[in-house]
């Protein structure tokens, strides 16, 4: 697939359709792939890479990239196209400056996901369809991609591209991957259990802001948590309140705009399941106001603001529905 992408990108660059390519760049190891802009065909041929470790959602970068001169070519996986649409809805991307190639995705993994399985000292990974052969300092290991794929990919909402100028590979379908199962499990707990569960998770938070900064929906010029005048300015959590406060506000600010791409959980150094907060909002407004998928179409109104005059759920539904 990598060769195919490079070939098409080269064509588009040579015929002048685009003047640069936003893609993924090789690193030291097989898995440490960095998003990068390629401005020459040589650079592209030498450093462009596409494999099972290309997890980054590149639509985040289009905000700045589409401001620049000339058209940029970008490769978007299905989940990234939702973020792309959502950013278009919010007028954050200049569509005319972007050429989107949708690419097929069969789930991604990461260095961290391999290490979670106890695989250390990774030197190289060979992809053979769904099977990965991992060469390590301590010997070779064979794993299937399904076993090591990121959690967000195991509960992928859709393999269908919702925005593209052209497509490489097959378009997929909207999936029913039981992505709300974990949310439901937590809802079934008692209030005390829920509190303890989240305290356990949030207490590991190091407030590195990676979840916020990687989020394609977090597009504020200045975040409230970075703004001394906001009254919310905070660099480190001193107690449980401040830990919870940051995560509630972060999730709330993207409610109705979160496309459930799972970047927040992917980047968390402490592997806090942040997507469970976002998914709770998604599940709630799906249940209360009808199914809504942010980014499915350009120009959709978020359920947080798209109220109806009558028959809207009253806040007291929380008391009636919530397990105590």
């Amino acid at each position, binding site marked *: 697939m990598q060769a195919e992408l490079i070939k098409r990108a080269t064509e588009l660059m040579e015929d002048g359709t685009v003047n640069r390519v936003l893609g993924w760049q090789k690193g030291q190891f097989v898995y440490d792939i960095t998003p990068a802009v390629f401005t020459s065909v040589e650079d592209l041929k030498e450093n462009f890479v596409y494999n099972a470790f290309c997890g980054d959602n590149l639509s985040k970068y289009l905000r700045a990239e589409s401001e620049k001169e000339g058209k940029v070519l970008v490769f978007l996986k299905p989940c990234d196209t939702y973020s792309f649409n959502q950013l278009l809805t919010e007028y954050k991307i200049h569509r005319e400056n972007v050429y989107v190639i949708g690419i097929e995705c069969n789930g991604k993994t990461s260095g961290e996901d391999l290490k979670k399985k106890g695989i250390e000292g990774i030197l190289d990974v060979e992809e053979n369809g769904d099977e990965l052969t991992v060469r390590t300092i301590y010997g070779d290991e064979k794993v299937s991609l399904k076993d090591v794929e990121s959690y967000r990919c195991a509960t992928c909402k859709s393999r269908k591209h919702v925005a593209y100028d052209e497509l490489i590979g097959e378009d997929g379908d909207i999936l029913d991957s039981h992505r709300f199962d974990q949310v439901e499990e937590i809802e079934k707990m008692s209030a005390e259990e829920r509190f303890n569960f989240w305290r356990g998770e949030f207490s590991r938070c190091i407030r590195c802001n990676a979840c916020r900064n990687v989020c394609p929906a977090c597009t504020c010029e200045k975040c409230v948590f970075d703004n001394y005048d906001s009254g919310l300015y905070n660099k480190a959590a001193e107690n449980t309140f401040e830990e919870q406060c940051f995560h509630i506000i972060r999730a*709330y600010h993207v409610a109705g705009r979160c496309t459930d791409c799972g970047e927040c959980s992917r980047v968390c150094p402490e592997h806090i399941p942040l997507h469970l907060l976002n998914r*709770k909002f998604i599940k709630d407004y799906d249940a209360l106001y009808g199914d809504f998928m942010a980014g499915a179409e350009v120009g959709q109104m978020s359920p947080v603001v798209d*109220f109806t005059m009558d028959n809207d759920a009253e806040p*007291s539904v929380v008391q009636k529905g*919530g397990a105590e």
Partner: protein
Amino acid sequence: MSVNENKDWEPKIIAICCNWCSYSGADLAGTNRLSYPANVKIIRVPCSCRVNPMFVLRAFQRGADGVILCGCHPGDCHYSTGNYHTRRRMTLLFSMLNYLGIESARTRVEWVSAAEGQRFVDVMDGFVKTITELGPNRRLEDLRCKQN
């Protein structure tokens, strides 16, 4: 907290009231010489949709045991649509707080019009009773903010 302290405990309730309906409702209660619990501290806002989630969280951080938000009845908002926004926002916020283990009974939204002095009193009586049964808020309080 020792048993002794518990005996003295009185719930602290923050009521955020919109200027046009609920605050006037509270006023009417006063003019009519109806009494509501002194635990309730009213904060006046121009419209219930002025309230952002941080108002609610901040109240809990600073030692509130319950937060109640009062606005005009749906359809009666002075700014036409403010309380419709409130309704959606707070539904989602309260659900999230509940999800994180903050008892849902600690947060409430009620619609009280300027003519409903008695209703204001009833709502506050009921809310104070609920919070008294629930006991002090431990899960969102900030120990640094304790008066000592």
